[in-house]
């Protein structure tokens, strides 16, 4: 299972790629592997204000529904429009093609609370 070093990870299995005060968010390889066969993704509208820990959408596989939980606070400034029609991208390419939203962060220091790749790897190994 891959956990790229340049990303930070939440306990809810979202990843964050930071570029200045912008955060691109998706779900980890561990999360997609657990869900398997993603068939439906519900994402927010651009402009939505999120607090850290807010549910920003949902993701469904054949067997289960999971909430998508924002690891940071801020405004949604972009949404991956390809995912609703091709949700399998999340299984095939969780870290690049499978990105979900971009958030303009209110407080970029929130990222520091998230796990590094190494910490996240240890975290999922204990699950």
């Amino acid at each position, binding site marked *: 299972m891959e956990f790229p070093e340049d990303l930070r990870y939440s306990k809810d299995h979202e990843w964050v790629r930071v570029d200045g005060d912008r955060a691109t968010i998706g779900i980890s390889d561990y999360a997609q592997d657990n869900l*398997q*066969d993603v*068939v*439906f993704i*519900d994402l927010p509208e651009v402009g939505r204000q999120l607090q850290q820990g807010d549910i920003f959408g*949902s993701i*469904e596989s*054949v*067997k289960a*529904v999971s909430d998508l939980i924002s690891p940071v606070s801020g405004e949604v400034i972009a949404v991956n429009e390809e995912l*609703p029609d091709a*949700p399998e991208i999340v299984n095939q390419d969780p870290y690049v093609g499978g990105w979900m939203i971009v958030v303009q962060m209110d407080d970029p220091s929130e990222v520091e609370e998230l796990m590094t790749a190494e910490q996240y790897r240890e975290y999922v190994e204990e699950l």
Partner: protein
Amino acid sequence: MRRTAIFDLHIGLGARMTEFAGWEMPLHYGSILSEARAVRSGVGVFDVSHMGRLLVRGEDAVKVLARETVNNVAGLAVGRGHYTLMLNEAGGIVDDLVLFRLGEGVLANEQEPTERQNFLLVANAVNTHRVLERLEKHVSAGASAEVREQTEVLGMLALQGPRAVEVLSAYTQDGDPGSLARFGIGRFKVGGVSCLVSRTGYTGEDGFELICEARSLPSIWNLLVRDGGAVPCGLGARDVLRIEAGYPLYGHEISDEITPFEAGLGWVLKNTEEYVGKEALRRMGFLSQAEGVQAALPKRRLVGLLPETRSVPRQNDAVEREGQVVGKVASGTFSPNLNRSLATAFVDAEFAKPGEELSIRSVGRTQKARVSALPFADFPAAKRRKE
């Protein structure tokens, strides 16, 4: 948890295991959706050894089964099977079953004496003990028949898909299983192993179910998977395929509180004898005086629903019409073959017509859904199950 004779092979293939009715079974080997596609486009193989296998034999076997199950047992020929139900006294469904009449040459064990009244009953894993209990109780009340559970000593595989005949025929030494009619059963040597082979399944595709001694199961599985190229399929794909084909699952479309007529299974009640549950159905007006003919119509009916989005409806989601609850979801899935989500639901009879516009209220979302007939598509074997 109970394990089948090929548990280790599943693990070796990378299966994600799940608990089902006390058994540790493969849920999938990587992707439920690609396994479900493989069965409709090629051939897949399922370990279904968790299903209950009961042998019923003796001079009163027909009598016992005609009291305990609802299809025309007396009319079942040797070498044939039929879909049937066991009901409770209230007319609810205890289990749905496939009953085979074995006989000369198709005994479960070749060493045993040949008897004409010799049946194999295949039950759902979750209900096997209840079906066994009912039959044993009947037998102990004085019938000349014997009921033996063979679930542990026999293993069972389902080989399903348009290529099933080609693959099985290639490894059958003493005859052509492709010559079996739908619901026919015979004994064949597959890869040198003596198997009961029936032209049955739970996918809506053509295919076979194979029963052999549990210790021979690994070699047959490997033959079909490694040499035959059959795609290993788990319970996840099995559920997708049975929903696409409109087949009921106990605990969803059928249960002790659901009558055959509500579940669209009135056609199964061909037994003219006085079976358990018949009196209750008669009192409810479901059987006319002539009997066997449906008179009153049930207030709720099982239908298919075509949701507007790819979001998957889940069991017990409310089905609504203009904000009023008119039913609830029995099963939901995403169909890779129809590329859309699907659901089955019990709805008030007045809204059960195909084309009716309803909505499904799931956690966090309500979406429109159109009533559809079952099965959802004209799969090769889906309609022929009724024969």
